[in-house]
């Protein structure tokens, strides 16, 4: 990690002003440990379901000590943010838009201009308000279990924590004291597993709420009726339909501005080599809703899984529109519809790549472009500079992208607790 804990610790917010929600369910009854020294039989999986991860690290030929990078619970001070390292195409500029909100991930904007931001481990939802020359970030919810899924419609903020769903009505009029939420957990009836089930959600052009349901493992058999999906619901949680199956873990999707088809990023499995299988950018073609995208048997452009096998593993599987790199962790995706950037950026998808952990040479930590043509896409660099390839270290982790009303692009950085605003053209930049 590039920034020491002591440098960060000054910025830890006590959060004493925040509204507290208890995400705790009733405590499960604790059973006493068995004291017998007899060796008990090997336990079986759940009936009809085999959740046991089939990962075989030794066959991957990867460094067995690779592990996920810790997300700091604190934000980087504004003068230590790596904005100077960011590299963009000619004519583009990056600046800090907001800072001091640790664990920065998802972004949605209210009708009155409040930016709501979701997080994972730190359990907070922030409200970021624009005060002209600076932005103020305030904790409005805390103590939730990974509230990554946010959506806004008709004055209401929908908050999806892991398997908990709340709706806050008229929230922008009540940011100082949030209204009692309407709990929609039972209506959405999400599976009770937690891994890969921090949510990504968004309202589609059809007015339905689209919801991620991840696979509860790195690589395992899944029940496709329960896990590894994208679902859609009516906003109140009724009318569930499965729109994609065999999806390992998507945490970002958007609709093409012209075709209205759903495009989603998908994070590939770990421990099958440094080279891949590569992550995917997928498209659900028209009239193919409910299609199978391959997990766990078939990855990337038709790579059979080495650990979970079946005959013809890729039969009937929709191949990706593009590969997005080994272990690159594509999260947020947004098709650009603004007028600020040059014409060739219209309808291009920007994808935030969070960056690899299960790869000896780090990869990603950037924002790439996907140029769409005929249902396929080509990937090219856009925002770089947060990965130092020679030193094999990173300075930030782009998580989500958001298009502002003026056509500029915000990129959230989970590692530093900040957002960067990317603009084009001196005049428009100076006008802010």
């Amino acid at each position: 990690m590039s920034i020491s804990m002591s440098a960060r610790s000054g910025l830890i917010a006590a959060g004493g002003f925040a509204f507290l929600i208890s995400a705790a369910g009733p405590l499960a009854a604790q059973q006493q440990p068995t004291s017998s020294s007899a060796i008990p039989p090997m336990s079986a999986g759940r009936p009809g379901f085999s959740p046991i991860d089939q990962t075989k690290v030794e066959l991957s030929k990867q460094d067995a000590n690779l592990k996920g990078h810790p997300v700091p619970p604190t934000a980087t001070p504004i003068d230590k943010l790596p904005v100077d390292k960011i590299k963009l195409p000619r004519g583009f500029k990056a600046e800090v838009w907001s800072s001091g909100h640790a664990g920065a991930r998802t972004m949605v904007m209210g009708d009155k201009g409040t930016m709501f931001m979701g997080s994972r481990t730190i359990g907070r939802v922030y409200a970021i308000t624009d005060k002209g020359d600076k932005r103020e970030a305030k904790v409005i919810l805390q103590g939730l279990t990974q509230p990554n899924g946010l959506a806004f419609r008709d004055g209401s903020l929908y908050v999806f924590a892991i398997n908990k769903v709340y709706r806050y009505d008229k929230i922008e009029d009540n940011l100082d004291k949030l209204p009692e939420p309407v709990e929609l957990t039972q209506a959405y009836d999400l599976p009770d597993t937690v891994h890969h089930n921090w949510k990504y959600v968004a309202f589609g052009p059809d007015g339905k709420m689209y919801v991620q349901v991840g696979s509860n493992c790195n690589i395992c058999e899944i029940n496709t009726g329960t896990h590894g999906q994208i679902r859609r619901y009516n906003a109140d949680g009724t009318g569930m339909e499965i729109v994609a199956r065999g999806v390992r873990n998507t945490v970002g999707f958007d609709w093409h501005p012209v075709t209205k088809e759903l495009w989603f990023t998908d994070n590939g499995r770990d421990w099958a080599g440094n080279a891949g299988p590569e992550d995917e950018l997928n498209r659900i073609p028209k009239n193919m809703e409910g299609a199978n995208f391959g997990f766990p048997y078939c990855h990337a452009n038709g790579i059979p899984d080495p650990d979970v096998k079946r005959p013809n593993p890729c039969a009937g599987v929709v191949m990706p529109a593009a590969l997005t790199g080994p272990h690159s962790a594509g999260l947020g995706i947004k098709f650009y519809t603004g007028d600020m950037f040059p014409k060739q950026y219209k309808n291009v998808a920007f994808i935030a790549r969070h960056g690899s952990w299960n790869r000896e040479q780090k990869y990603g930590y950037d924002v790439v472009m996907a140029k769409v043509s005929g249902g396929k896409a080509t990937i090219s660099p856009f925002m770089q500079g947060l990965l130092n390839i020679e030193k094999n270290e990173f300075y930030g982790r782009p998580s989500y992208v958001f298009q502002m009303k003026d056509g500029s692009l915000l990129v959230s950085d989970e590692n530093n607790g900040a957002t960067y605003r990317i603009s084009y053209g001196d005049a428009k930049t100076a006008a802010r």
Partner: protein
Amino acid sequence: MTDALARWWRPLAFGLAAVSACALPAAGQGGDLAEKIQFCSACHGDDGNSKIEKMPSLAGQPAFFILNQLFLMREGVRKVEAMAPIVKDLKDDHLDGLSKHFASLPAKRSDEPVDAALVKRGAEIARQRRCSSCHMPNLSGSEQAPRLAKQRVDYLTTALKEFRDTTRPGGDTAMSANLAGTSDADLVALAHYCASF
């Protein structure tokens, strides 16, 4: 919301009762880092190695792990009823200082009996479940992954069950996936294996 808050506060009362088993110094909630350390040590052990049932040892834990957990408990994400009133008033410098202090202490085994047959079986389960992938081959932990080596058997058994049954909000979700399908007996064996280091 009222119900949810009530659920959170009710176990808190039990937690306070549990803490009363430790001889807490009266001055624990004010003052400097040395007083904070003394306060924590009353339950977690003078040398950071707990002698109290189901109370975790902190000695030799990665500093980032301790800081992160204290932060998440103060934040209300990780809900440990006994800890909630204690971490509530800790300042950032306290979190930092406490983390570094306990990380610097050598881990020692508790005096709980460790069963050789269970250790052997626990080693096999740990291999299958790839515990060392995050907790390191010697189970000494690293960054956000805690040290398991020499931890108390009774504490680990409880913690593993909470992870498996997802009754431990704020924990790493990978733990729930990695323990899916284990029996209580499996978890006891894992705890014996970890303690045996």
